[in-house]
């Protein structure tokens, strides 16, 4: 009887020990597998994940490692993306400078080699000068944009009569509209409204949008309006030009994005991205609606900062 009980206990103990040994062995195997995967992650493969059963004793450890890897990878990815886009920028810039520069030197060489004389020579000099000025404008735009992009631009808020200032900016464009046979409708309220805003930023935003209508819009009519609405300043610039296609529309505020890709078309691809950055800097919003062949509407909204009363 005693032997029997002892035998029973020993058998049960053996089973328990065997089960424990198996459990330990399995855990060890899982840990070893996990360790090889972690080695691979350490060697730079951030896409590797530890896959375990939820009930495994090492589950929470593996889940934590996964979480850390995913987080690190996301950070790493952001850096890589920034780097990539800068490289793209550099390539694209050298391209955008090379073509106008080739054209400019072409005119100068033609003059130097004596291909042209007299009146034609004068004409060539004028063309070359204009091209040089365009290039200067491009480089200026580029620097402005780089400054914005690196967050170095400082906004200087001034107190101005916004209605008066809007009128001033838009009226500077009237000769251009008339030269290009564009009918215009400008509506800005008559009263005074003093607000606090960065004058140069606002001017640059409106100038770039209006310039776009001239360069790309092929419009015959433009409507510019400004009003105070619900404690916000709202601007609208609407034209009846060629519009922007549906595929281009979501990308127009991206830097260096040009519609009609791969063409030697006008523009730096920076204008609207400067607009977007400046609008952001002024805590405003910009939206665009466009229908192909019907026209485009840019809608701007800025917070109305009423200057503090000074005595």
């Amino acid at each position, binding site marked *: 009887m005693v032997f029997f009980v002892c035998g029973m206990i020993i058998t049960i103990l053996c089973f328990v020990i065997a089960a424990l040994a198996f459990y330990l062995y399995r855990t060890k195997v899982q840990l070893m597998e996990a360790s090889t995967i972690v080695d691979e992650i350490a060697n730079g493969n951030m896409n590797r994940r530890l*896959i375990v*059963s939820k009930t495994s004793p090492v589950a929470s450890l593996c889940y934590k490692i996964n979480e850390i890897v995913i987080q690190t990878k996301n950070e790493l*990815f952001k850096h890589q993306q920034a780097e990539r886009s800068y490289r793209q920028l550099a390539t694209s810039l050298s391209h955008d400078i090379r*073509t106008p*520069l080739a054209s*400019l030197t072409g005119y100068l060489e033609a003059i130097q080699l004596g291909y042209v004389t007299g009146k034609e020579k004068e004409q060539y000099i004028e063309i070359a000068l204009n091209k040089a000025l365009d290039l200067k404008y491009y480089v200026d735009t580029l620097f402005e944009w780089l400054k914005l992009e690196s967050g170095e631009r400082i906004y200087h808020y001034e107190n101005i009569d916004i209605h008066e200032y809007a009128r001033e900016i838009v009226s500077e464009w009237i000769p251009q509209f008339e030269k290009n046979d564009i009918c215009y409708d400008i509506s800005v309220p008559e009263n005074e409204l003093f607000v606090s805003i960065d004058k140069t930023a606002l001017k640059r935003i409106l100038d770039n949008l209006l310039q776009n209508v001239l360069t790309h819009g092929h419009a015959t009519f433009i409507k510019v309006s400004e009003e105070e609405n619900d404690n916000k300043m709202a601007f609208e610039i609407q034209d009846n030009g060629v519009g922007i296609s549906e595929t281009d529309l979501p990308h127009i505020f991206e830097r260096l994005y040009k519609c009609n890709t791969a063409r030697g078309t006008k523009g730096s691809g920076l204008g609207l991205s400067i607009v977007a950055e400046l609008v952001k800097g002024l805590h405003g919003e910009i939206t665009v609606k466009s229908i192909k062949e019907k026209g485009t509407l840019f809608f701007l909204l800025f917070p109305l900062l009423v200057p503090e009363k000074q005595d």
Partner: protein
Amino acid sequence: MNDCVIETQMLTKRYGSTTVVNNVSIHVKRGRIYGLLGRNGAGKTTTMKMILGLSAISSGEVRLFGESLKKNERKLYPRIGSIIETPGFYPHLTGTENLQIFARIRGTIKQNAVQEALKTVGLPYDDKKPFSSYSLGMKQRLGIANAILNDPELLILDEPTNGLDPIGIAEVRAFIRSLSEEYGKTILISSHILTEIALLADDIGILHHGNLLEENTMADLEKKNQKYIHIQVTSQSLAAQVLERVLHTNNYTAEADNSMRIYDTGIDLVELNKALVSVGAGVSTIQICSDNLEDYFKKITGGVGIE
């Protein structure tokens, strides 16, 4: 680290005397989207099935992550997510329950993996709708959720937009793009629609009657898709001046290596050459590059083309 995530060497599939896939060697590089393009029945699905071990290989070899697939299946397959044909789910269970079953079988990478995968593809978590009453679009989404459940390094997607409406197609396309661009996944995708592959893939392999006719980067193929006059000259500036003054065009770009592209293809080449030479712009190359992708595929598939 090996650059190829999938590499097949002379992969062949025969059914009796018919060869469905013939000596196909594809190279799917890390972090890129590889589009396998071919008409229905060209052997796309069979190739993918052989890579995934769902179909026996008649001859040839598959290498995944730089290792031979043979004997390493258990180690390599958990690193892959896939959808082949219509995904198989239990019809009377909900999407969540279906994914939970797969999660239990395969293990998971985080506590709430199922919930997150469903959220990523825009399906509700823990709703009561059984899989059988899902729309085709929802079924396809659940398939994608299942494929990305363990955040795999490699995704193999067989016609993932099949049966989706245009908006669904655009969404899935954007999603696949983001998997590649934001998460650095390597993706092998098949399609019989040229435009879809053209919009998505970085590299492309064209299958026709079981043969791989071409393997190339999309960027290279796109070069073939433009229309322009390519010239190489000794002086870009003089050439530029000629283009503007004599031929009256501004539609050109100056490239590296003294080459230029003129997008105004209406220009007469003889006249262009004469004008360039007369100012001493030294022409070494002058040619019209015009081809479109569709024509190109027609050409290499022997005239039949791809939808």
